[in-house]
């Protein structure tokens, strides 16, 4: 039984937003992991997910480059840096559909933190290994991701 391939696919699927791309990314990651296995030190799961994560990010970048080349690319409008402010709180609706849309609107580097923490229950240390950034960066990206999700869900005006 491939005990980490589900976690790998989950991460890739959340990062790429598409079944087919996620499958490609995991297959690519599997080949790279096989070659690099001799260098593995420590836990296999964060090591393997780091490879999956990098394969996914590469695919995202490649996709963006393709889109920029194909379209007359007007800048995609930024959603603005809404952050959660309790003073402006209205009732938040946590329904599944709106939550999913809010997640998809996050930058992938932030969305990744939510997936690893909430869906994969990884520790900050493991998350820093997967994303290849210091623990402080993990904390700040996770915190900003959560604030942004709440702000989007609460529809706080800019």
């Amino acid at each position, binding site marked *: *039984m*491939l*005990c*980490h*391939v*589900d976690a*790998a*696919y*989950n991460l890739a*699927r*959340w990062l790429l937003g598409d*079944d087919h791309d*996620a*499958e490609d990314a*995991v*297959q690519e990651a*599997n*080949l790279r*992991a*096989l070659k690099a*296995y*001799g*260098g*593995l*030190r420590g*836990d*296999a*799961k964060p090591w*393997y997910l780091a490879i999956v994560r990098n394969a996914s990010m590469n695919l995202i970048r490649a996709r963006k480059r393709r889109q920029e080349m194909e379209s007359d690319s007007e800048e995609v409008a930024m959603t603005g840096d809404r952050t*959660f402010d*309790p003073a402006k*709180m209205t009732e*938040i609706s*946590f*329904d*599944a559909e709106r*939550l*999913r849309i809010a*997640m998809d609107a996050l930058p992938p580097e932030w969305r990744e933190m*939510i997936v690893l*923490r*909430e*869906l994969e229950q990884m*520790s*900050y240390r493991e998350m820093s290994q997967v994303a290849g950034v210091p623990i402080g960066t993990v*904390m700040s990206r*996770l*915190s900003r991701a*959560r604030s942004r*999700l*709440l702000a989007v*869900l609460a529809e706080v005006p800019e």
Partner: protein
Amino acid sequence: MICDEARILLGAYEDGELPADRRQEVERHLRECPECAERFGRFLKLGDAIRTQLPTYRAPDSLKPAARPVRAWPVFAGGIATGAIAFLLIGLLIQRRAVPDLTSELVSDHVRSLMADHLVDVPSSDKHTVKPWFLGKVDFSPSVPDLKDHGFPLIGGRLEYVDGHQGAALVYMRAKHVINVLVLPATVEGAPASDRDGYHIRHWKIGDLGYWAVSDVAAADLAEFEKEFLAKG
């Protein structure tokens, strides 16, 4: 603790990542500050909603190849279907990390070494080249006997990482069959002489080092290999 400081730590507090003293400071602040407490409550609700409402995707069957016996794989050189074997091996390798079993690890290391480009790091049939190559790379000195006259020529050596230990792999051959000899400190437990998936494993000690030979060569040949290795090692 002031609000700005508490807010920065709320996430880590929620995730159980704060040391005890900081945790208590945050708890005290939350008791005293209704604004931060409300904020914290929203974050808790968000966490619950994410965990219960968002899908956790499962890998499709195409990423989970059906189990096949290792015996079916071609043993050496040409004809290895890299892609299919990659998926099966990645499964074996990663599974192995979750359920450590030295015998499985030895067999999968052996098979993996047979894939192109990974049989030897130092290709040489001269033991005076192979043995010193390990100096500084592993913290022991393996015996590397010359067994060419007995029909077991030395092919070379490579580093191997097994069960959390940095080990040495000595590669010999018998006709067209590869014999991998993994050398680790004798304190490593496991994998007595056995057969697994069509491969034979033999195990012996010389001094304070353990040697494990893995091969699909005939069992009698591997026994002879062990005997000659011990005689000249």
